[in-house]
């Protein structure tokens, strides 16, 4: 088809975030704007204070839980797979497989189609819809783990290691550090899928979101607050406790007997990272694509041009060069790796 639109006229980086001039909207803006399209609920992508927000229902719900119901002037729920018209620009949300409600945003105008994938992964995850590769002219990919050293193992193998350790050290508790949105619930669900049926103790910071996941039909089994009232030190012997990683360095962790600190993250692939963080049992479980997933996804989109954002752009750009695919880093500011 004849293209009347050039890619960089359809989407371009601005200090507020990725902007679509013909549609007059931003994708995942980091500052308050008029109209924001949001890929998923992690706080570096989903901020409060926009005049209007378009996102999946789950992402809107999650933003409501995190920021309060008045997080935006108005909201509109995007149904995955349904195309909307925004000022003449076609916009479609497609599942990204990152966390519950996460979506890629496909923007099409004048024969030019760009997919902004937000954060995504290709490994199966029972807590969210799987990523769908969308054919496009330009694919915008994250590169959190954009180095050939990042190879995530199957998640069930990692969970099996916690369960094995729990039988080896029945007198100690296992503290699994996992970010509050997505990773924590995925870890709990993996434990259940591996047959673990004892209560899982959770840090208070996880309660609301885990309850929301359960309300969306994602069964996490029996969750108990890891409070001192619910048990003395001895009661946490042999227990598996899930909490945000920061809590384990905190005084909060003193209620557990001789804890083994575990951390569920793609960064745990690097031994030195685990060592520096005082992690005894690293669990390489990530909600981001690893190197192999990144390159297979780029191939599957058939995109002629790749824009690489937040993460290690240089290696992925180099790989695209070797494959004869045009690629450039897209310098967007303000994204961290909250999800991992």
């Amino acid at each position, binding site marked *: 088809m004849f293209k009347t639109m050039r890619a960089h006229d359809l989407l371009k980086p601005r200090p507020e975030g990725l902007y679509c001039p013909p549609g007059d909207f931003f994708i995942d803006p980091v500052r308050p704007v008029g109209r924001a399209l949001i890929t998923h609920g992690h706080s570096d992508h989903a901020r409060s204070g926009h005049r209007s927000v378009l996102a999946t229902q789950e992402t809107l719900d999650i933003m409501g839980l995190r920021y309060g119901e008045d997080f935006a002037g108005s909201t509109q729920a995007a149904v995955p797979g349904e195309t909307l018209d925004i000022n003449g620009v076609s916009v479609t949300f497609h599942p990204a497989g990152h966390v519950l409600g996460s979506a890629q945003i496909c923007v099409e105008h004048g024969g030019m189609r760009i997919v902004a994938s937000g954060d995504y992964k290709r490994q199966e995850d029972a807590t969210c819809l799987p990523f769908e590769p969308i054919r496009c002219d330009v694919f915008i990919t994250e590169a959190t783990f954009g*180095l050939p*050293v990042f190879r995530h193992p199957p998640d069930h193998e990692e969970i099996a290691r916690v369960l094995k350790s729990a039988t080896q050290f029945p007198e100690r508790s296992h503290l699994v550090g996992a970010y509050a949105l997505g990773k924590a619930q995925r870890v709990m669900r993996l434990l259940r899928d591996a047959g673990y049926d004892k209560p899982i103790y959770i840090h208070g910071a996880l309660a609301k979101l885990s309850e929301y996941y359960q309300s969306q039909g994602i069964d996490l089994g029996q969750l108990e607050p890891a409070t001192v009232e619910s048990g003395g030190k001895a009661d946490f012997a042999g227990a598996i406790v899930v909490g945000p990683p920061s809590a*384990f360095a905190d005084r*909060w962790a003193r209620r557990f007997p001789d804890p*083994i*600190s575990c951390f569920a993250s793609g960064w745990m692939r690097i*031994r030195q990272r685990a060592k520096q963080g*005082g992690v*005894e*049992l690293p669990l390489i479980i990530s909600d981001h694509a690893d190197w192999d997933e990144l390159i297979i996804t780029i191939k599957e989109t058939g995109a002629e041009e790749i824009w690489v954002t937040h993460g290690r752009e240089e290696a992925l750009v180099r790989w695209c060069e070797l494959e004869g695919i045009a690629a450039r880093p897209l310098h967007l500011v303000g994204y961290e790796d909250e999800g991992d």
Partner: protein
Amino acid sequence: MNRFAELLDRLVLTPSRNGKLTLLRDYFHSVEDPDRGLALAAITGDLNIAAVKPAMLRALVVERMDPVLFGYSYDYVGDLAETVSLVWPQPQGHIPNHMPTLAEVVSRLQAASRSDGPKVLARLLDDASISARFAIIKLVTGGLRIGVSARLAKQALADLGKVDVSEIEELWHGLTPPYTELFAWLEGRAEKPRSAALALFRPVMLSNAVDDGDLEKLDHSAYAAEWKWDGIRVQAVCEGGVRRLYSRTGDDVSGSFPDLAAAMTFEAALDGELLVGDPREATGTFSDLQQRLNRKSVSPKIQQRYPAFMRCYDALQIDGEDLRALAFTERRRRLEAFVQTLDPSRFDLSPLVEFPDWETLERLRQAPPHPIIEGVMLKRWDSAYLAGRPKGPWFKWKRDPHTIDAVLMYAQRGHGKRSSFYSDYTFGVWSGPEGSEELVPVGKAYFGFTDEELKEIDKYVRDNTIERFGPVRSVRADRRNGLVLEVAFEGLNRSTRHKSGVAMRFPRISRLRWDKPSVEADRIETLQALLD
């Protein structure tokens, strides 16, 4: 191979000794022969595999992937073995039909000639998982570096078989990988292995520390006293032409002390202290001894400058006769006569210390005649030579430790029970001209305080943090602010690795000096004066 790889991964991140023991014991219990025995040999350093050089490893990987991408990867990870294990590309269309066992890996590596070694290694890496690749690379590049000593591995075996670790140490040098007869015995399926090997290690007799009030109950005339030399406790065994110098845990250290080993031309098993110098003239200090420790190879120059000799304490066997059941008096008599027949530049006798009463000995203990003496030993005249640490026959009575007042500078979070506490402390003393002095770190300690004191220090650290780097916090410490710690330590070495130029031996926190202003803490000169 995956189970061995998993074991290595866990061991390297498990800080506690008990945790390591559990992991090792479970591994030995659940893995079959010969894999577990080969793993044991790999850990104790008894596995012989021709080494592959790092440059060769790097060459293998850049033949297989874009060197630029490898460069980015290596820069990020920083460790060659780990980088290669992660980035190693599986050949197109290659589906390993079977993951090699540790035994297969070892036998293929051992069978490889020098020229086809790299090819064999590459094939193994093609078939292995990521963590197995890491383990294979560790095996071929030498040195697992997982924080497990041979001694700890032997302790895990002892736990597995519910036997005393000295039994394993005694057997060890008669055994070879994969130790199937050892495991059979530990699992109660066979008799204890009997070895025909010569010059085996004999379990060492150890002493208990003198506690307050111990001596009042003891009759001083029942005990011999001798100096406690602060070298390396060794056992020299020569039997039928086989000579071995063992550490007190049964590791063969002959290779590190070829000069001493060469002088072992006798038929006996002797217990003593390895020191440096010429015993007829002067005994070297601990710093001199340091020159001979932890070296891969010992140059002739170093051997000449710091010759090793053995100061003999005891005789376990002479000319085929086992003396261990005899009383110390008798063993000592035989030893005195025997040492006279040995090369006087390499062997001498540890002198007995005469004392009419405990008070005299106390005075001698506090003011020993040589800096490398760390106290006195008390041995009952009638004591037999027993393995292990029996209570009663032998005592060590150490010189009081040195102490200094230092200022807390950095605190690091601990592990396990202490993972939410800042429990490892780096402390410093003042250096530089008065008025513009600065703190220089002189050591690190993580014990000596009570649980209650730990809580207090932890709170202090959290309230006075000025910077954080990962698990480490930098604590406010200047002329007006700072927590003074009284640090006790056994001795001081010169160090080129530390900015302060000194390294403490066995430092621990002996007292918290909340009362003392930081500016009144000690100066570096106080420590420098302690260097010999």
